[in-house]
């Protein structure tokens, strides 16, 4: 039987969990949005968001699986928690790390990817696990996007801000979220055009508007990114870098909002 290794930063990590009030929280429906988003990004049928506590892994949300927590021993997740790195197993039945994992065997999981969320002080706060029922690969850009997905610190979306705008009105919520999707898609096109013809004035205007739209919707990371490029917008701006970064951030925002819509539909 494989024995899991204990990471050197275990105490600091658990202290951090306490600080963020992440210990013993159990499932939180708010995380379903992010689990759905992770599935959309990686095109996987199943995902779970979890916190690895001292001996158990607490599931915050899972899509396509029904579990609340798992003992750490024998789980494939132990390999990532020990070194904080991404684990990708394209065929679980052929890999020594995944073969003894009871969850993988019971659920018939054949593809497994685990991407840790690391905070500014290099503490792993949580993880997203992606599963598929057939062997497959994951592309680098999907991993990059998922790595940036610092869910637990709510970097990407501030639900309080979003709810403040919507004000608990289900009908308006649908209008608001669909409007947001339209606006973000339009901005993607506008940024593409402005970058292609290197129009600084247009780029500045688009970025300014994006900053406000994203901020209003609680997409603070996108808003900050737009502000950063708005400040840099002059004739010497690297249009290509700006376009790449902004479109990447908009795509994350769009995925989160689409997942939110899907989650709301599920609740109805």
């Amino acid at each position, binding site marked *: 039987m494989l024995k899991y290794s204990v990471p050197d930063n275990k105490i600091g990590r658990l202290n951090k969990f306490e600080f963020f009030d992440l210990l013993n929280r159990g499932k939180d429906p708010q995380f379903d949005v992010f689990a759905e988003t992770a599935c959309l990004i990686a095109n996987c049928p199943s995902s779970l968001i979890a916190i690895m506590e001292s001996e158990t892994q607490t599931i915050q949300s899972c899509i396509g699986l029904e579990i609340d927590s798992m003992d750490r021993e024998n789980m494939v997740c132990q390999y990532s928690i020990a070194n904080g790195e991404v684990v990708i197993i394209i065929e679980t039945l052929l890999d020594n790390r995944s073969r003894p994992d009871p969850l993988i065997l019971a659920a018939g999981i054949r593809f497994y990817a685990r991407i840790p969320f690391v905070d500014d002080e290099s503490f792993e706060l949580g993880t997203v696990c992606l599963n598929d029922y057939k062997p497959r690969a994951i592309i680098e850009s999907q991993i990059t996007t998922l790595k940036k997905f610092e869910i637990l610190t709510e970097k990407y979306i501030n639900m309080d*801000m979003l709810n*403040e*705008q919507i*004000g608990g*009105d289900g009908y*308006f919520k649908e*209008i*608001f979220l669909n*409007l*947001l999707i*339209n*606006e973000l898609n339009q901005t993607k096109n506008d940024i593409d055009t402005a970058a292609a013809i290197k129009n600084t004035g247009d780029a500045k*205007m688009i970025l*300014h*508007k994006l*900053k*406000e*739209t994203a*901020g*209003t*919707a*609680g997409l603070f990371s996108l*808003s900050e990114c737009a*502000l950063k490029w708005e400040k840099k917008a002059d004739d010497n701006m690297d249009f290509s870098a700006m376009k790449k970064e902004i479109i990447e951030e908009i795509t994350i925002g769009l995925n989160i909002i689409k997942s939110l819509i899907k989650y709301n539909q599920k609740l109805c």
Partner: protein
Amino acid sequence: MLILIAEDDELILKTIEHKLLKEGHEVILTRNGKEAIETLQKNNVDLAITDIMMPFASGIEILSAIQSMGKQIPVIMLSSMGQEEVVLNAFDLGASDFIVKPFSPSELMLRIKRYIPK
């Protein structure tokens, strides 16, 4: 009250409209400065809420236009971080109040209440 909103961000425009309608106000939506000025000329608006940076004419130009029309309309400016100087200029041109984006719609509603005749 009849309230004009001038805002080129559809999301913010619709959010404010939604809240104002719920509070029982009448609302006119405009999506750029030029449209807002034309609408202000044709209508007796009780209050205007305007963005600063907009296509065709800015919020500052709207304030100047209101002055030129000789109308006494309270105007709440929707500003962004880093627009402090513009906001000061707006107050010189007769702006009544300002709120920084992203803002809480409830806070905006509270500010609007100050302009509802008792």
